[in-house]
């Protein structure tokens, strides 16, 4: 028993050395210092993730469980949102295109908007809201109730079990959700086109695939991995490093959503710049 407790404290010491907790409160109170300390802390957290992700043993069962909770359980929400977005975008775009007599370009315009930008970004924001806050709150409450400490005592690596599985699940599930989101969004657009017209599904989808190119699909698909990674990582970081106390849970969930949503837009901006540079 003594050996286990000793090991626990050793592990904890090691963990605190690797991931400095509550540094902003200890060292400095200025906003700029806090920001850079947060960046430092997040960088160390990310480095630890990459270190742990390749090191066996692998928690496949937990990965499958988290993928189910993160991916499968988000499908209905993402599908409903995408359907509405596809429908609304088409209905809103129709009058402008009709002014130029270019209503036949409606499917193409909506498809490119959904595939390149709206599908990935809207899905990522929904994902950040649902999954980011969920992970943040879950890990924060585990931190508050000292379940993370208990795991360390029981020889389970909490970082590997809790953080790595969730971040990996988020990274892998978001692209699949975006594939569904794009498909459902295009179906919503098809419904909207047929509200005030009569276009066969064959013509609608053949027009779309005539106009799309791989350069529309692949950059949008690749950036969703980064969105998923950022959302999972930030959710875990905020939850794992939350303050001890009940208010820490709410704060962690809230800041996870805000920060993850912001990161989605930042990554999107970088991705668009890189894509346009590569295409020129």
């Amino acid at each position, binding site marked *: 028993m003594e050996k286990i407790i000793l090991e626990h404290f050793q592990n904890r010491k090691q963990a605190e050395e690797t991931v400095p907790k509550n540094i902003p409160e200890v060292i400095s109170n200025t906003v700029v210092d806090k920001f850079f300390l947060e960046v430092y802390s997040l960088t160390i957290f990310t480095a630890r993730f990459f270190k742990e992700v390749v090191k066996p043993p692998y928690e496949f069962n937990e990965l*499958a*469980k988290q*993928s*189910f909770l993160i*991916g*499968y359980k988000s*499908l209905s929400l993402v599908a409903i949102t995408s359907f509405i977005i596809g429908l609304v975008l088409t209905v809103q775009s129709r009058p402008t295109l009709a002014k130029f007599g*270019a209503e036949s370009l409606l499917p193409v315009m909506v498809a490119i908007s959904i595939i390149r930008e709206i599908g990935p970004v809207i899905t990522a924001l929904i994902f950040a809201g649902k999954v980011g806050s969920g992970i943040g709150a879950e890990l924060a409450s585990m931190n508050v109730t000292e379940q993370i400490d208990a795991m360390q005592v029981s020889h389970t690596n909490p970082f590997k079990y809790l953080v790595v599985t969730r971040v990996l699940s988020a990274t892998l599930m978001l*692209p*699949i*959700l975006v*594939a*569904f989101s*794009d*498909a459902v969004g295009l179906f919503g657009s098809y419904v909207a086109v047929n509200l005030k017209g009569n276009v066969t599904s064959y013509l609608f*989808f053949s027009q779309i*695939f*005539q106009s*799309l*190119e*791989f350069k529309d*699909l692949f950059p949008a*698909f690749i950036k969703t991995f980064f969105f998923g990674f950022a959302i999972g990582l930030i959710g875990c970081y905020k939850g794992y490093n939350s303050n001890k106390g009940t208010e820490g849970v709410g704060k962690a969930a809230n800041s996870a959503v805000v920060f993850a949503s912001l990161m989605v837009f930042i990554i999107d901006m970088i991705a668009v710049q890189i894509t346009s540079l590569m295409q020129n």
Partner: protein
Amino acid sequence: MKQNTTNKIRLGIFVSLGIAVFIVGIYFIGERQQLFRSTFHISGVFKDVAGLQAGSNVRFAGITVGTIENIDIVSDTSVRVEMVVDESTRKFIKKDAIASIGSEGLMGNKILIINPGPGLEKEIQNNDTIKTVQPINLDEVLLSLKSTIDNTSQITKDLSVITTDIQTGKGTIGRLLMDQSLANNFDSAIVNLKLGSAGLKNLMDDAKISFDQNWDSTFVNLRESSAGLKILLEKARKSWLLWGF
């Protein structure tokens, strides 16, 4: 445990369907770029490709049959455009076909159009080069339009000068339209003409009355004169002075 297995099956279905949607998307986009079909390559050399890009559509008889694969500058006056065309359309495209560059609608992308030639030659082969027609250069059209606009501007300037002259009463038309004295003279001429025609009418009326009044007496006198003349002639015929010799 059973619930855990069910969840794993659901997750498996979810992931499989997601990947299937993605693959279907890739397939249909690749289908457009002829990735999954038997194709052949042809090329054409243009002086100017007018904004045609790799990936643009190639049309034959209004049907999209391929895409532009590559565009290379060969020299300072020629650009080689390589295209990938669906193998099934090869039998319809002859070696004398002509490629031109058009656009999809007024604001659409540039496309390459293969027009059938006289059709006297054999069907086109892989890596053949077809004849081309230079596209209408929008800049040249605009340049021509500019000279037309310049001419129109000059004409309007001249017209402006002419109308100003007319307004100020310069020139024959200006005097005709703007000079008040000419109009007054014209008015008085009309009045005189009117008076003259009235006098002529009176004269004609008087002449008619006079003629009507003197006609009968003139006719009687004439008849009497002719009777006298007849008698005189009769006497003369019988006179020895004329016929006694």
